[in-house]
């Protein structure tokens, strides 16, 4: 039937679409299509009317006042938050700068290193030739017991750790961590995960295959560590 050809065009026409010339010519002489177009236009009018009717609904007269009240009781985080966050950032910077610059802080940190680290650090050169599976010198896992120090802590047996550092890099990584521990314990704390021993012992910092414990450092000039 010829009308079927133009159904789509006429429906598109009903909601604002263009009408092709052949469809317009057919429409002019076909009462069935004229009736169909009228129904489609009525449908769209109904849809438009329904949407406008609903959306013409007004809020309550005091709506704006209630918004003000609601907003006033919300957290005031605009400028205040900006100020607070800026102040907090400044405090963090000041704390970090103090840790670096305050006289004596570095010396106190560098002045005492765990006695385990000293013989371990000196032994780093001789240990470097040993097998690849050995942990990096400087760890407490297989480090020799402290020779003599009233503050030396007993060496705890280190659980087997996965080897994550290539053999050729372990000595350098070990020295890096020793220097960090000596001078910048707070940096180490930030960089590593704290793992609590299942046995309930105090938390330690572990980075396989290294193990760094929160210890009181003994005297050792920083310069000697850096040179090694």
């Amino acid at each position, binding site marked *: 039937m010829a009308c079927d050809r133009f159904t789509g065009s006429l429906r598109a026409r009903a*909601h604002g679409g263009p009408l092709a010339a052949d469809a317009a010519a057919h429409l002019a002489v076909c009462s069935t299509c004229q009736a169909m177009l009228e129904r489609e236009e*009525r449908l769209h009018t*109904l849809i438009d009317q*329904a*949407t406008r009717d*609903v959306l013409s609904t*007004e809020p309550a007269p005091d709506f704006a006042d*209630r*918004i003000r009240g609601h907003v006033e009781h919300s957290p005031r985080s*605009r400028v205040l938050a900006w100020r607070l966050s800026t102040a907090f950032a400044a405090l963090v910077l000041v704390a970090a700068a103090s840790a670096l610059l305050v006289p004596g802080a570095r010396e106190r940190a560098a002045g005492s290193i765990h006695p385990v680290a000293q013989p371990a650090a000196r032994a780093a050169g001789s240990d470097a030739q040993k097998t690849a599976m050995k942990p990096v010198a400087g760890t407490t896992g297989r480090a020799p017991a402290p020779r003599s120090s009233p503050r030396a802590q007993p060496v705890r047996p280190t659980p087997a750790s996965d080897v994550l550092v290539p053999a050729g890099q372990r000595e350098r990584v070990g020295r890096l961590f020793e220097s960090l521990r000596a001078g910048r314990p707070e940096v180490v704390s930030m960089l590593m995960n704290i793992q609590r021993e299942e046995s309930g012992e105090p938390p330690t910092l572990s980075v396989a295959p290294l193990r760094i414990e929160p210890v009181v450092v003994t005297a050792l000039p920083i310069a000697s560590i850096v040179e090694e």
Partner: protein
Amino acid sequence: MNEGVGRWPGALVTVGAELDREFEDRLRDSSRLAFSIAYGVLRNRADAEEVAQEAFARAFRRFAQLRDRARFRAWLARLTWRLAVDRWRADQRRAAREQVAISERPFANTEEVVAARERSAHVWRAIDTLPDKLRIVVVLSAIEGHDTHEVSRLLEIPEGTVKSRLFQARKTLAERLRWLVIDSPDP
């Protein structure tokens, strides 16, 4: 809204008061928009007001970044829509939808009023089933004073995209609601 400002140093007082004035302007300018969008989804005045209030509260918290009027309205429209749709989805079983408002057109009798309300309810149920990106275009376009250009500004999409989506939405609605005009008597 300025109660806490007096405790702060002079510069902050100035900034706070200026922001408050601007926010008040935005409130007067856009509260009706937020309500209409929310009502277009929820069709419940109390729910729509709550959603609009929450949208404004969030806008207030971010107002330092939203001071430009156009940007504020666009952000508010999208946020209100999202909050309203979230609430609508969580509350779909709720039966307390208001009777769909019918404008003051001359009806011969109450039967026509009832019939008009039913047709309108069918229309809105069909709108509710549209995909979100078509649904929001239908709602925004139906708000008084919103042409396709204004809708494109609110949604921050090209006007051609608005027209295309509106065409698609109306085509879909017509397919779903055609039975209404076949069954209803000719005027």
